[in-house]
Structure formats: C-alpha cells, structure tokens
C-alpha cells in the first residue's frame, strides 16, 4: 500500500507551507526593525524661523575686533521671531546645564556703519534668541574670544 503523497501534492503543500513560513519570518523581522526605532529625539529641534515663538531673549552684546565680546544685558521677551541662521563669523548659542549646545544662531558684526559709514572699534549689537526649555547659559563666540551668561540668574 502506498502511504506517501504524490509528487504533485507534495509540491503544492511545500509551496503553501513555505509561503506561510516566509510571511511569518518577514513579519517577525519587521517587528524587530520597528522596535529599534528610537521613540524619542533627545536633541532638541531648533525652533523654525518665520514664526512668533513664546518666550525669547534680547541679548545686547558689545563686539570688538580684538577683544572678547561682552554681554551688556539680557532681557526676557514675551514673544520673539527668528530669521534663518546663516553661516557667519560670530555665533550666539544656548547651552543646557551639561554645557551642550541646544541652539545656535550666526550673526555678523560690521564695524563700518552710519551714512556714510565710519569705523567703530566696538559695536553694540542686539541678538534675539528663543527661550528653550533646558537652556542654562548663553554663549557668544567671536574671533576675539567668547563670553558666557548664566540664565539661571534670570
């Protein structure tokens, strides 16, 4: 008595079971891939330009050609608008408590200004920054040096 399946039946069953196994295998691999996707972005995303943001800082900076910049004053703003940051010689940064940069804005200082422009050794500039959660310090960097301001005191 022949107890085995015919070649045709074996082929059909083989394809069916193999297909099922393949689908199961693929689903399990996909599930593993998805568990590897980070569910939280740790680095804060810079606030987008062209929008009115809740909270900001008005920073008056004294910039010199030769010496480190000085922060003249820092004042909190109820709302602030930012323009896109472009590559620039000077940078204004927000740091968190661990000293990591969480926001950066480039800015230029032009030492010739007025009509007609005349040379100024020191230029006072106003920089606006967003008030980001976790910001602990403002840092201003120029070719002449850098200066930090503790926001916790505010």
């Amino acid at each position, binding site marked *: 008595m022949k107890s085995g399946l015919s070649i045709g039946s074996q082929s059909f069953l083989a394809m069916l079971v193999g297909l099922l196994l393949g689908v199961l295998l693929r689903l399990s691999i996909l599930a593993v891939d998805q568990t590897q996707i980070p569910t939280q972005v740790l680095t804060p995303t810079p606030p987008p330009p062209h929008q009115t943001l809740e909270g900001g800082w008005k920073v008056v900076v004294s910039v010199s050609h030769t010496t480190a910049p000085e922060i003249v004053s820092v004042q909190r703003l109820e709302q602030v608008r930012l323009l896109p940051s472009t590559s620039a*010689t000077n940078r204004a940064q927000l740091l968190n408590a661990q000293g990591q940069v969480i926001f950066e804005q480039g*800015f230029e200082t032009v030492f010739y200004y007025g009509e007609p422009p005349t040379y100024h050794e020191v230029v006072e500039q106003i920089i606006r920054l967003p008030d980001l959660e976790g910001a602990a310090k403002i840092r201003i960097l120029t070719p002449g040096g850098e200066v930090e301001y503790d926001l916790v005191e505010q």
Partner: protein
Amino acid sequence: MKRFSDQEQVACWLCDYGGLLLGMLLMVGLALLLRGWLQPMPITVPPPPMPTMIPSTPVLPTELLPTRQSTLVTIASPQISPTPVSTPTPSSAKPEMVVVFIRLNWSGSQAEFEQAAQEHLNLFLSESQLEQYFAVVVQMPSVGLEDADLSSENLVNDVASFGLLNYPADYYIGLTDGDVALDGQRDVTGWTLGPNSIAVVAEASYLSVTAHELGHVFGLCDEYSYSAWLSQNQTFIGGCPNPYPSDCQKEVGIICSGQPTLNGKNSIMGPSGLDGDYGFNQVCRQSLAERFALLSRQE
C-alpha cells in the same frame, strides 16, 4: 507483515515526504532572499513638538495695538491652539515677514505717520519684489519712541530694543518727521548697522531712505560715495554685490548719483533727495532676490 527497521522507516519517510521537505526549505530560502530586495522603507519618527513654541498673533497691551493694518498687509488668521504646539508653514506657502514701523519722535498725527510709512513701504515692496518671497505683515502702532535722541549712535539699537519689547517682528523701521543727525551730521537722512541689522531709522520726508537702509540690511552697498562703497566692500561678508558706478569719480568728497535703473530712475542706493523717481537697479534687484530666497527657507 514485514516490520521495517528504524533506518528503513526514516528512508521510507524521506521517500514519501522528501519532496515536501525540500520544497519547504527552498521556499524559506527564497523568502530570505526576497527580504534583501524588499527591505521595508525606513520609518521616520517625527520629532516631538517643542514645548515652548506657539504660533500666535502678537499679544500687546491695548494701548499698543496697531491702529491700522497696511492695505498691503497679509494678515495671518489667528490660530487658537489649546496646547503649545508648532504649526509648520506648508512648504508651498510663503513664509511670513513681520515689519513694524515705530513712531520716532513723531510730532504729526497718527494718520500722517501711517501715510508716510505706507509710502516708504510701497517703494521698497514694489522695487525689491519682497512679496514674491514673503507674505509681508506690516504694523504701524500708535505708541512709539517719543523722547529718543535722534543724534545718538545708539538710535538704531534704541528702536530695535523698543520694538522687541513691545511688538514681536522681524524688522523695525524707526520713522521720524524730525531730523536724524547721526553724530551731529544733519545731512544724514537715515542709517542702520548694516547687513543683518534688525532695525533702521529714516526721515519720513525722504521717500527713498527706508528702502535705502533696508537695502543695506539685505547686503547692498552705497553708490553715492566711493569711500563708503570701498569700506563696505571690505567689511561686508562676500563684499558688495552692487558695484560702484563706473562713470563716477573715485575721489573723496565726490557725490555719485548711483547707477540708475534701466528705465532711468535714480538708484535707491545712491543719495536721497534727487529729483525724480527712485528704484533698485538691475544688480541690486538680483542681489536682493538671492538674499530673499536664502532668508525665506523654512528650516
């Protein structure tokens, strides 16, 4: 009945079901091979909304509210959001640029202030084509700086400070019906801190001054004086996009009228107070277009 040994039973099972087993192994192998070709698309997780951002219209004390919106103004619809979330502007929409005219020792009426501001604005918008890149929102509040020192070299920063504290905006224009006299020079009709400055000051009686100073903010250089052009060419990042007119003498004290536009208008980057209309010449327009395109990117 013959009883098979264990080895014979295994061999018989393989005879009966070997094809099935082999087929299954082939299909699994095929499935693994196909996985390499059909990798799922990477799934990106959008960043969580920033907790400090909220798109809104400026919240100002009642007495500081703008009394009139410019006819050219595009007012964004107020968006009421119960939770602080950011609403990204659609990529196809133009980003918003908010410009505030600040009354600077303005002695006339609010209506006169608004009319002067509107005329200054119209010249800049029509000549710069700014509205091709931005939805421009203009405010002309009735409360401004009343006791400013028009000769102070901090005047531009005073306007910027006042504006930042009271009216959130991208740029501030201090407009006066008085006499701006930077460092005592009474022939000065307006000035700014140069490229990337957020504020300018201008005398209302010279229509082209606001456009001239905003030209500096967006990187243009003076065409009325070679020494002025030269110092800006040496200090502006990337130098001057607009050349000093070739037909003007490069001597100290010579006032050049600037490179006129193709249709014969006076150059806005030339001196103020000339007879006739003013416009941005071709090189200035091209440079402004490039600058606006850069600034209007939304990331």
